[in-house]
Each structure stands twice: as C-alpha cells, then as structure tokens.
C-alpha cells in the first residue's frame, strides 16, 4: 500500500464507514475481530442502505450480516478483483477523471483485467460468474464505497500483491480520498499500527526512515549520540544497512547449518539468544521448527504478564528466563488505533506483584549493558533537562523526530487533552466541538504541526491541508518511463497555493514550489528536506500555503521495483489446483530474504501436494480470543466460551472420513507435522476446506505439555496450536507467512 500511494495505513476511520454507500470486505471478519468497529458498518447498512459484501473462504459472522457473500477459494483474491475490474472497465464504470489526474499505470491494469473474464475468474476462485457480476454491480455502482481487509489478504505468498490490487480497485472507482470510501485495513492488536509506525521492524527505523546511512545519521543526531559510537555497536557498518530476521522466520536463524534447513546470511553467526517482550510466538507458523529453534538457543528471555507458551513448547533445561511484565493498565502512554489516531492511556494501578513495566526492564538492561545514558538522552534534549519523565518525554521525543508520517503534532499535552475531552467529538466525522474545535479525535497522522487538526481521511483533496487534506505522496520520483508522476492539473487540496501537482518539499525547492521567500535566519535553520526538518519551517510554510510537505503526486498502479510490477495471480505454494499451478506458478526461490534463503518454486514443484493433502486449511480468530491467546485463555470468563481447541468441519467432509461431531481427529501438514483436535460440525466451511482457530497452545502434536507450565500458571484453556500445521510459505516482499492458504490431510483419531 505504501508503495501505491505513500503510506501503508488505514485511509479513513471506522466511524467514517458510516458514510459509505457500499462496503466490500476481503479476508477480514470485523464482526469477530473488531466487534465494536462493526457497529459503524451496521449503521451504514441501516441508514444508507449500504450493501455489505463479504468475500471470504468461510461463512463468517460478518458474512451472516452481509447482503452478498462469495465463498472464494483461499488465495485467489487477485483473480477475483481482476474479475471485478474486468466488468468495471467493460461497462465504463471507472472514474476516468480521477484515474487521469491521480493515477499512474492504470493502463497496465486494464490490459491484465481484460484477460480475467468472469468465466476464467469463476474457474480460479470457485465463485460463480453470476455472483461475481452481482457483486461488482452492487459495489461499483454505488459511491462512495469502502473496502476493508485484514490478515485474510496479507498472509499469502502474494500478500503484497493482494494489498496492491485492492487499492487499485478503489483507485479505478475513484473511491480514494473521500468520506465513506478508502482502503480500510483492520489492524489486529491494539497497537499494531503504533508499533509499526515506531518500527519494531527489522527493515527500518522509527517512522519508516529505512536503514540507509542518512537515516542512521539523522537518528544518531536526534538521539543525541555520536554516529560513530552507534556504528561501533554493530559488528560492521554493512550490518546497519541490512534488514534483519523477521518474526516469521527467526527460527531459521537458529537452525541454519542443520540438514535440510534454509541457508542464512547473518554476520557469520547463528541466532543464539532470544529476547521477547510480549510476543506470543506460538502464533507464528511452523511451530515444530520454532520448538526446535527454542531448544537450540543458548538464552531465552521472555517478559510477559502471563506464561508465554514458548517456555512450555521448549524442552530447553537451562537459561530460560520468565519475567513478570506489567500490563498496559499498569503504565501509561499513547496507543495508535487502526485509523492512525492516538489515544492516551492513563495508568490505572501500580504494577501488581513483582511485575515491572517494559520500559523499566529496558532501562535496567541498558544500564547493565552500559548504554543507559545514550539510551535515554533523547528524552532530555527538547528542553535540555537533567532528568526525564516517562512517558511524556518519550512521546515528545518521537514527536520531535518523526516527520515522515507527521508526528510533530502528537505532543503528550495535546493527546492528554483529547483523552480528557473525548466526549466532545462528533460520532461520524470525529471533528471536535467546543474546546476541541478544529481538531479531529486522536489527531490521526499526519498531524503536521503542533496546531494541526490531524488527517481523518488520507489523500482527500476536498479539504485544505490545514484541515487534514492532501494529495498522494510524491515518493517515487518525478517521472517514470517518460510519464509525469505528479498529480494532474486541478487535483490539489482545497485552498492550495499551487493548484497542480508538486514535488516533495526540500530546502532547495521550497521557495520555488511554495512561491515564497525565506528569511536569512530561516534559511540557516531549515533542514535538508521535510523528512528531517526539525526546525519545522517546511511544515509551517506548507500549512500557510495550503500544501502538503510530502508533495502532490499520482498513486501508482504499477510498482516497477516489485517482483510483479502489477499484481499477478500466483497459486499458493501448496495448491489444490495443480492444473492452475502450471498456468500461475509462484516466484523463483528468493535468496537472502531478510537474511534467510526462502523456497518458492522449489517447494511448489517438489510434488503434487494436492494428492496427499487434498483439503484446504484456513486459520483465523475467535471473538473471545486474541493473538496467541494466552492472555485471553487466562481469563476464566473468556476461556469458558471456548474451553478447548477444535476444527470447524463440514458434516459432508467429516462423513467421508467417518468423523462424528465431537470426535477427535488428526490434521496432517505437508511439513510432516500433525495435530489432534476435536471436530466441530458447521456449514460455515465448504466440503473442501477446514478451519482452525489460531489461539491455542499447550499441546504439541498430540502431546499434552501441561507439566511444562510453572505451577499455578497454566491457562484455563489449552490445546494444539493451529500453527503446528500451517504450511511453509512467505510473502515475497514482506515475508508474512502464508497461513491463510495451505493444504492438509485429515483422519479420524
């Protein structure tokens, strides 16, 4: 998404969905995963007669409230959306003006879409041509329409193409930058958006600054440390610039060198220590490998309010540390909701028992590892203080530094004020009234200055930049293949001094692009470009001129830096349709993908997987559970709603295997792993697939590992982890695991 138009985040808000006239949902189940957010969809349905359309391999609770539902084969969303585009283009339902002024490369999409006739789409996706036409008709002819997605779209080898075709569909219909439209990704955990913005990620620094020398130097300076000192902390400079291992495949970093394991490129060493703060690693796929990796580590450090079941999974006998972490109610700070808005959490109680907050744990470790002074210096710099106050000074630190996504306005003072006055905001637009007038609730980023309103709808040119308007980001240069990448004439935000497209603002071009003259003092203080301008002169001047610091460009349907320039359908590595594998093969194997060689074609071609593993395997969430589930399984009231692990199976499929409702059954994966679970009859899955909830742990391949819990800490519900049998396979760009499109074999236990 970021590669399409600049930012990879939900463009509108849950409340804004109330403005939608049509709602289409791919691979998301908000009725289960975001129940309170789902209210906004129901209101749109009630008040606007908005049709809710659900495209999902499983008849979910969300589908139960849908007007139209298509049961798609897992991993074929691209084909489905090309099918929609085919019908849209054929009937001329696209928004031609919008495409012309604000989109680059739509012609390439048009060509590919022409190949996806309804008949072909039907063959690939398993959805009837009639249904496809009906859905396209219902969605494309009502504007604004909003498009929602979640993990069902991202957790595929082609996930990064999935997340591009959906924006393309919205761009074609001109549904971007309007109230009631947009691409609304529903984030999982409470602060996925925030932790991603802060970049607890192996490929970039906070604020998506990347890992280039320039970024490191900017951060060294902003943290108040010597760049050379920082460089010296790494093994060698090159390892500062190289992406690290990911959560999805860290285990490969431990196991490398053993027979049959993927090769790694990690500064000449395997991973030997694992430090985990609040991450349920039983929710990542390939649990058998994860177990082996845990067993082979020299040190495991885990801080969690509950027993992280990694320690139950492993047979490692020494140097496994389990530290009691405080919950988010025992500390304070801000959290970013799925719509990019920040909310302040006040501390409810002191940490219970001997638990420590995550920051205190980090501070204590930094002291012992000898970099505490450097670590905390950033909090002292704004006001040249002697000591810091957590978390306010940390909030103000990143507000001071992160310009890329417009954090300047997120001062702790403003965020606290929003919390205090959260009753003074409109329930649809989230615009404040009374003392909060002129600010949107939670100051959704980008919030360019300390007085900016926040931006409730990304890329909206119907409002001024001061009120949160903007065009698409100029991020990919000015020209490509001789085509202008800046926005077309007249497509600038309301009240813009420049009515056309313009490049991102730098110290060099600011006077020309904004049509202003800087004073000598301003020239002296201004930073090199808008991303590193800590003087805020660029942002200030831009606000005055009604222009966005990041420019005004076209979104791109063609991403020339990606393995697939335009999204292409490719079959999952383990596909039930071998005939289609030949037509839509996966990628070539990818060496050094986040430090580990990753198999694509060699895995797909290894054998006809569908022969031994004829059943599609899909995983997902339950309403009463969250992530790896230990937190929710440790609550007696939530545990009682689903006290044991189960497998949703269609009675027809079950009958073919002589499995009765409530029988135990084995599920075998192509990686030679298996789990034993209870069959639960339901018609929500078709006869060619089974569904597993992903929240359980405590059993491993039929073995009850209860004895490994420290005494008195076993959750109220335990069971097999679905991720023991999810298949090998990772996204070609992001390395997200392919947990939503794999194969399995079932038998009665």
């Amino acid at each position: 998404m970021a590669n399409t138009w600049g930012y990879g985040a939900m463009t509108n808000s849950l409340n804004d969905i109330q403005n939608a006239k049509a709602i289409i949902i791919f691979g998301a189940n908000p009725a289960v995963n975001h129940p309170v957010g789902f209210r906004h969809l129901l209101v749109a349905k009630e008040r606007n007669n908005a049709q809710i359309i659900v495209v999902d391999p499983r008849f979910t609770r969300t589908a139960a409230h849908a007007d139209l539902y298509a049961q798609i084969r897992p991993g074929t969303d691209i084909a489905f959306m090309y099918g929609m585009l085919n019908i849209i283009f054929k009937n001329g339902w696209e928004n031609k003006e919008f495409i012309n002024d604000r989109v680059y490369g739509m012609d390439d999409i048009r060509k590919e879409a022409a190949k996806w006739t309804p008949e072909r789409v039907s063959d690939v996706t398993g959805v009837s041509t009639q249904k496809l036409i009906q859905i396209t008709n219902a969605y494309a002819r009502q504007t604004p329409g909003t498009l929602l997605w979640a993990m069902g779209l991202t957790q595929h080898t082609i996930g990064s193409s999935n997340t591009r075709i959906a924006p393309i569909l919205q761009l074609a219909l001109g549904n971007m930058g309007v109230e009631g439209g947009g691409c609304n990704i529903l984030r999982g955990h409470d602060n996925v958006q925030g932790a991603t913005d802060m970049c607890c990620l192996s490929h970039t620094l906070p604020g998506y600054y990347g890992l280039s020398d320039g970024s490191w130097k900017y951060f060294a300076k902003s943290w108040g440390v010597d760049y050379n000192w920082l460089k010296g902390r790494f093994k060698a400079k090159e390892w500062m610039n190289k992406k690290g291992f990911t959560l999805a495949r860290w285990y490969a970093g431990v196991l490398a060198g053993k027979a049959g394991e993927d090769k790694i490129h990690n500064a000449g060493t395997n991973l030997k220590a694992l430090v985990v703060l609040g991450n349920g690693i039983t929710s990542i796929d390939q649990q058998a490998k994860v177990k082996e990796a845990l067993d082979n580590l020299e040190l495991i450090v885990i801080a969690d309010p509950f027993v992280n079941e990694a320690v139950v999974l492993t047979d490692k006998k020494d140097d496994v540390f389990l530290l009691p972490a405080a919950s988010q109610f025992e500390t304070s700070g801000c959290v970013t909701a799925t719509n990019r808005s920040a909310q302040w959490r006040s501390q409810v109680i002191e940490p219970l028992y001997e638990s420590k907050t995550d920051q205190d744990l980090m501070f204590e470790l930094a002291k012992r590892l000898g970099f505490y002074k450097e670590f905390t210096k950033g909090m002292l710099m704004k006001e040249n203080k002697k000591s810091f106050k957590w978390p306010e000074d940390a909030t103000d630190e990143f507000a001071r530094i992160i310009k890329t996504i417009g954090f300047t306005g997120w001062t702790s003072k403003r965020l606290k004020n929003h919390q205090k006055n959260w009753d003074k905001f409109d329930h649809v637009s989230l615009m404040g009234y009374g003392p909060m007038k002129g600010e949107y609730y939670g100051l959704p980023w980008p919030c360019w200055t300390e007085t900016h309103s926040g931006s409730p709808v990304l890329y909206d040119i119907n409002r001024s930049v001061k009120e949160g308007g903007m065009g698409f980001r100029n991020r990919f240069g000015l020209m490509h293949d001789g085509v202008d990448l800046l926005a077309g004439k007249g497509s600038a935000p309301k009240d813009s001094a420049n009515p056309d497209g313009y490049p991102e603002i730098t110290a060099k071009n600011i006077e020309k692009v904004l049509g202003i003259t800087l004073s000598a003092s301003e020239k002296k203080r201004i930073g090199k470009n808008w991303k590193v301008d800590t003087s805020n002169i660029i942002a200030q001047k831009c606000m005055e001129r009604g222009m966005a610091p990041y420019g005004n460009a076209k979104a791109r349907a063609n991403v020339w830096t990606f393995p697939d320039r335009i999204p292409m359908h490719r079959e999952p590595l383990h596909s039930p349709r071998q005939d289609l594998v030949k037509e839509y093969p996966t990628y070539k194997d990818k060496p050094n993908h986040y430090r580990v060689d990753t198999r694509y074609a060699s895995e797909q071609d290894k054998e006809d997987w569908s022969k031994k593993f004829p059943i599609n395997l899909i995983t997902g969430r339950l309403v009463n559970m969250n992530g790896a589930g230990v937190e929710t399984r440790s609550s007696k009231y939530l545990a009682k709603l689903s006290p044991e692990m189960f497998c949703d199976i269609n009675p027809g499929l079950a009958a073919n295997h002589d499995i009765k409702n409530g029988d135990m059954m084995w599920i075998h994966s192509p990686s030679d792993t298996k789990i034993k679970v209870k069959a639960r009859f339901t018609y929500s899955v078709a006869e060619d697939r089974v569904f597993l909830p992903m929240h359980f742990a405590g059993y491993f391949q039929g073995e009850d590992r209860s004895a490994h819990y420290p005494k008195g800490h076993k959750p109220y519900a335990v069971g097999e982890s679905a991720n023991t049998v999810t298949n090998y396979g990772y996204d070609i760009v992001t390395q997200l695991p392919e947990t939503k499109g794999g194969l399995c074999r079932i038998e009665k236990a």
Partner: protein
Amino acid sequence: MSSFARMKFYCDEKRCIDCDGCSVACDEAHELPVGISRRKVILLNEGIEGKEFSTSVACMHCTDAPCEQVCPVNCFYIREDGIVLHDKNICIGCGYCLYACPFGAPQFPTDGAFGTRGVMDKCTMCAGGPEPTNSDAERKLYGQNRIAEGKVPACAAMCSTKALIVGDAQSVSKIYRERVASVGHGVQSAPYGWSKAYGK
C-alpha cells in the same frame, strides 16, 4: 419512579453479532462463578446463508412472571418498575422456576459462594437483591446494583453494536423506532432539511 413503564430488555437481531460482550460484561460485573451464565448469546443456523442469526438471552423480567407463580416458597418479588428479583435466603433451589421459565434464565450452581445450597441465581437487571442497597451482602449474593446508582445494566451498556437495549418499555421502543425511521435517510451530519434549505 412510579411513572416508569416496566423495564424491558430488547435484542435487535439485525445488530447482534454473537460477540458475547454482554454475557462477559455480566460475568465480570457481578464476578459470577464460572458455572453461572446469567446472560447467554445464542447462535442459530450457523453457517447457513440467509439464516444464521444470534440473539442475547437472560431473564426477561416478564409481566406475570411464570417463575414467580410456580415458586413454592414465594422467594420472588417484582419491583414497581417491573424488575423481577428473588431472595436467595428463601430460595430452596428446587428448580420449579426453571421448568416455568420460557427463556432458561434460572441458573443453578453447584459450588462457590453462590451455590452453597444450590440456590437459584439469575439476571437481576443489575438491580441487586433484598439486602441493603450496595451493601457487601447484596454484592456477594446478587452482584452490583447499578440501577440504584442510576446506571445502565452492564450487558446493554457494553453491547458492542448496541443491539441489546434496556430501559423502561417506552424508552426501548423509542430507540428502536428511531432506528427504523432512520433507515435510508443517510448519516445525519447537519440538521434535516439543512442542505435543501441552505445548500451544502
């Protein structure tokens, strides 16, 4: 208080999404033992297109409550506002009320603070019981008394989609009528007629 119509629960099936927010809100608010489910969400026809739906059920606080009529020890009493309560110190745990109740509301625990004699437990509409209001004794036996505090019962207050509505019958019907009347009118961001009269 006497001018109140009778207190009612209403669950809008079009909005209920089977999230169990209400039932857990109830469990948690009254710190119920795990075996007790004063409120339950029922899902029917799971996975069948066009037929799946869910609804939230607890004691409906009936007029002419059947439970009260069959109770052999007269442990039930009905407040002026229609909330049906019972006295756990009188209840003998016989279970007649369960036979009589059309909603399966009465609960019979076997252990824990509530169940020493297996006496019946049920939804109080967050109105406590006969013990002094907001006393420890009341809280232990019946849970919170939110009605006395002027607060909405926990289940409806925390309903994720506002499917579950509670209040005196007139208020409940007013909310539902507004919902029905608003269908197709779009989201109101300015007063009705504003754009027609004064432009956008």
